[in-house]
């Protein structure tokens, strides 16, 4: 598969389907796995990495669910291509910035992606639209079981799966849910909710992952603890927490509509107008406007636009995507111009 083909595909997790898709954009489960007999990537030689990469690639070829998947060797891609894979949430910044000996598998519809030789030998990720952790777990669990028949994973009965960083030891599982919480932000309740979440040993991050700020009212909530609970217990805990946050967000939305519907309508329609007409736009501004448009769709205030269209824009307006669409390098100003054009093209029906 060529990198350019991603531009014409929509990842499953962006489709805006799945349970509670109005508030939960996507669910993701990640498992870390290491080979029992090879040093972890950080202490591997180039030759070790190459051996691991070849062995894992071969084993992945035998998994029915991954039929038709694309496989990339990071050092065969240029910097923009690698950045594009990061922007699609298929791999980490770390995987892109230090490409030697690293690989990536991407399944059809981008449901499964597997980083090879990142911090751990394998980082398997399954991502689905809506609140869908249990289904994600079923998929990832099957892949992991099949793989463990071919690869001897580092595992101890007492401590579970052994990972490079002890914060992942045990299940080596991280479940995370991307939530859109504009009404909790507007009613100034969000900090209370986030504080409660962190007290329960869950972490919250921004849309673009670790170390990014929460922009456009998007919050990614995930478990911190990976040892001492079964995978299904952890998933149940996250689901329980997420359902409470969904309920709070829904109540806040109702309150906003009841108290001041005209104000909310005005705000949403102005944002919609800006997106359809702007000629220069930063990603920060675009994301904030997308957030309002999403709220407009959810509340029935906007009817001519779908979740899918807005979700796709979140991905398309990032630097590497814009440069791939334009097929050349763009500076910050050129990107802002191209971004506005991409948005208009998507949201305004052509007259011709």
């Amino acid at each position: 598969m060529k990198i350019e083909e991603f531009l014409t595909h929509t990842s499953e997790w962006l489709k805006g389907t799945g349970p509670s898709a109005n508030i939960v954009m996507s669910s993701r489960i990640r498992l870390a796995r290491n080979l029992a007999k090879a040093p972890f990537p950080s202490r591997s030689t180039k030759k070790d990495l190459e051996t691991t990469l070849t062995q894992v690639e071969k084993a992945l070829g035998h998994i029915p669910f991954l039929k038709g998947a694309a496989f990339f060797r990071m050092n065969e891609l240029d910097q923009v291509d690698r950045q594009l894979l990061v922007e699609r949430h298929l791999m980490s910044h770390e995987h892109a910035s230090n490409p030697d000996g690293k690989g990536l598998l991407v399944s059809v519809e981008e449901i499964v992606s597997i980083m090879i030789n990142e911090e751990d030998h394998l980082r398997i990720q399954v991502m689905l639209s809506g609140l869908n952790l249990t289904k994600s777990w079923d998929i990832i669990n099957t892949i992991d079981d099949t793989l463990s028949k071919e690869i001897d994973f580092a595992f101890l009965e007492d401590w579970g799966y052994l990972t490079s960083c002890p914060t992942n030891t045990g299940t080596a599982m991280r479940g995370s849910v991307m939530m859109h919480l504009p009404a909790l932000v507007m009613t100034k309740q969000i900090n209370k909710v986030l504080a409660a979440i962190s007290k329960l040993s869950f972490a919250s991050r921004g849309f673009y992952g670790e170390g990014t700020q929460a922009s456009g009212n998007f919050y990614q909530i995930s478990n911190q603890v990976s040892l001492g609970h079964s995978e299904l217990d952890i998933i149940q805990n996250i689901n329980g927490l997420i359902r409470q946050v969904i309920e709070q967000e829904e109540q806040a939305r109702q309150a906003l509509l009841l108290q001041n519907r005209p104000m909310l309508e005005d705000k949403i329609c102005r944002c919609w107008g800006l997106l359809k007409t702007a000629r220069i736009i930063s990603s920060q501004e675009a994301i904030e406007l997308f957030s309002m448009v999403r709220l407009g769709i959810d509340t029935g205030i906007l009817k001519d636009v779908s979740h899918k269209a807005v979700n796709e824009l979140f991905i398309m307006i990032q630097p590497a995507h814009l440069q791939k669409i334009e097929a050349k390098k763009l500076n910050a100003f050129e990107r802002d111009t191209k971004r506005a054009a991409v948005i208009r093209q998507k949201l305004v029906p052509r007259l011709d």
Partner: protein
Amino acid sequence: MQCDICGKKKATVHLTEIVDEQMSEMHLCEECARQKSVQMEQQFGLADLLAGLSQAAPTTKETKEGALKCAGCGLNYEDFRKFGRLGCSQCYVSFSEHLAGLLRKIHGSNRHLGKAPYAFKAQVPAAVGTSAALLPSDNLEDLKKQLHGAIAAEDFEKAATLRDKIRALENS
């Protein structure tokens, strides 16, 4: 919008920090953002956290500890404390004494209750299900009373173990 730090270049990176429920925003140019992120890593690096945690753990052989090495990959325990990353699966065995305390501090437990690899399952059939049934007090009511006691005493680890036993019994 100009960069909050240098005040010269255009701000393209926007950072929100939440500290004690107080939100603050910073708008930075790419260059200043890079410097800031290095600073933040230095301030809040996982390695520091781990180092802090393992210092807090009781250190029995203070003098020998520096020389502790992994038999598999040769990683120094001192380097693990500095960088927070283990070198191979064997490190877990070589440093087991220290890691037992560290894992408990991070996760609140140091006993794996999740799945096992295929080969491992084949060797040890139904390990979790039987261990609860073999215990002397497998009376469901007794266990439930103990669970309430443990919750009241805020001994959550004991409570979790009891809860799992109760579940195993109820499901058997």
